[in-house]
């Protein structure tokens, strides 16, 4: 068996792949947080709950309506995105004139409500979601066996992240969005409907979280706590990357997932805390985050 640094190669690559998958979720979630923060100036604490909701909606679509994985990949983010739009219009938009911290507190309350409701309805033991037939099985890559679904998750997440980046950085819609992030009143003076842009941004950010949730459904069991388990680490990822750059969020997310995976190989006890340790080092060396703008 091939050994790398005294570690069997399949084990090393296996953990690397797991790390990449976690990293894909970190990237998608921190990307959504960064987009929402840029436009609404609030930290969407409910992001984890909406991620969980995405997984649950996919599960419900399959269980109640018989709608499979691939349609759910589109439908579930749409449904949760509409839910997000309603939330933004009815509740969150009331806070824009207040201190940013109130947005954090409100969305924290929101996440308690959403998670509590799902826990009441479905318990917290978790529901299974089958991997679609096309993506079952594994492929021999020569140096390791890769479960097809896991490879699919990494590729799809990467495509979605990069498309989001392209939309924001390379299209005229993205340019309007960036301009409104910099100076909303001025963009409004040019005739752009900024409140609608804000609403749609929130909807899109939420839909991204739900999309990640659907991807996660077959990997982790669908349970009400799946979001809050992730979101605390994602906050550390956001602090490390800084919220100034879209590409930065993506890179940081994937990189930290890989770091976590490697830690599982070399020093498993620290794998849960390594992201936080990286955050401490970044705070000491570069408080504004790796890709953050100076305050």
């Amino acid at each position, binding site marked *: 068996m091939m050994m790398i640094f005294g570690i069997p190669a399949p084990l090393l690559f296996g953990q690397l792949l797991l790390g990449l998958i976690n990293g894909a979720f970190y990237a998608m979630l921190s990307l959504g947080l960064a987009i929402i923060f840029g436009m609404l100036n609030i930290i969407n604490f409910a992001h984890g709950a909406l991620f969980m909701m995405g997984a649950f909606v996919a599960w419900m679509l399959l269980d109640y309506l018989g709608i499979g994985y691939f349609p759910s990949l589109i439908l579930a983010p749409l449904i949760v995105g509409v839910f997000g739009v309603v939330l933004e219009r009815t509740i969150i938009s009331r806070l824009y004139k207040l201190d940013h911290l109130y947005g954090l507190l409100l969305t924290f*309350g929101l996440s*308690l*409500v959403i998670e*509590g409701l799902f826990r009441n309805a479905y318990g917290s033991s978790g529901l299974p979601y089958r991997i679609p037939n096309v993506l079952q099985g594994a492929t021999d890559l020569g140096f390791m066996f890769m479960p097809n679904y896991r490879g699919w998750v990494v590729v799809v997440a990467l495509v979605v992240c990069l498309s989001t980046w392209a939309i924001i950085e390379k299209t005229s819609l993205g340019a309007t969005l960036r301009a409104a992030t910099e100076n909303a009143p001025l963009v409004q003076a040019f005739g752009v409907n900024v409140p609608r842009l804000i609403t749609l941004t929130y909807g899109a950010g939420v839909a991204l979280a739900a999309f990640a949730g659907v991807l996660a459904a077959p990997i982790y069991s669908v349970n009400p706590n799946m979001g809050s388990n992730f979101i*605390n680490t994602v906050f550390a990822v956001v*602090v490390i990357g800084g919220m100034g750059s879209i590409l930065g969020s993506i890179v940081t997310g994937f990189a930290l997932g890989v770091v976590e995976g490697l830690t599982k190989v070399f020093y498993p*006890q620290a794998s849960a805390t390594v992201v*936080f340790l990286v955050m401490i080092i970044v705070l000491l060396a570069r*408080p504004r985050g790796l890709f953050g703008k100076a305050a």
Partner: protein
Amino acid sequence: MFGFSRSQSIAFLIMLALIVISPFVLYPVFLMRVLCAALFASAFNLMLGYVGLLSFGHAAYFGMGAYVTAWTMKFWHLDAFLAMALGGLTGAALGLVLGYLAIRRSGIYFAMITLALAQMVYFFCLEAPFTGGEDGIQQVPRGHLFGFIDLSNDMTMYWVVAAVFVGGFLMIHRIIHSPFGQVLKGIRENEPRATSLGYRTDDYKLIAFVLSCGISGLAGGTKALVFGIATLTDVHYSTSGEVVLTTLLGGLGTVFGPAMGALIVTAMENYLAQAGAWVTVIQGVIFMVCVLAFRRGVIGEIANWRKLTL
């Protein structure tokens, strides 16, 4: 006395009277839970209400205080006074280290960093052998205070908890109304200006954070002593969220608000204990209502209505 205004003196006397009378009417163990929560929330309020920094990870200091008090009581058989003091010192020491990191950023980032650091503490407690992992530290003896006061009696324990609460409460009040506290409020209102006046604002923030964490650790230690248990719940982020809710509901930046909030939240949990996960939903709804329509909190509304400082 202690820099109380007239209205605050009256409110303080009412609170003292309630603390003295209530154990004869209500269940002392419930009241001790309220007092521990009240002390914890008052300590948290010192940061959010007076420095304007939202720490979303105060459970770390509360929980570590609880673990250290529980551990030293159970395995070192320390005097209860020493064990509680060690709980407070642990909170303060941890606050010094983590606060040093967190105050490098302000606003929303401060909240996220404190949350993330607390999550790290949680994972540490999950893995570390001395916390007992999922079981926690159970069957902690209450022991004796100063060697001769037996705390196994609930009423005796109650008076000790009441004394700890009143002491901590007066200390926080004294901090807020000292020249140091005035500087803190100045930093909250306008940090660049405080800097330009020559104050090293980071030092002030860190000292306030350490004090707040120390008192939180004391509250955690006292709680562990009362209930004879320290568990992962004490360091979990839901505990951090709960102390935010308590303070917000009672009245942010008011002296008596956190105690009022603690009474309401603890009573709610007590009476809704059968409702299971609905407690979380109700807490979430209260959170949202507070943020949307009730930002002054109970005490803040009363103060505003009667034009008082409370």
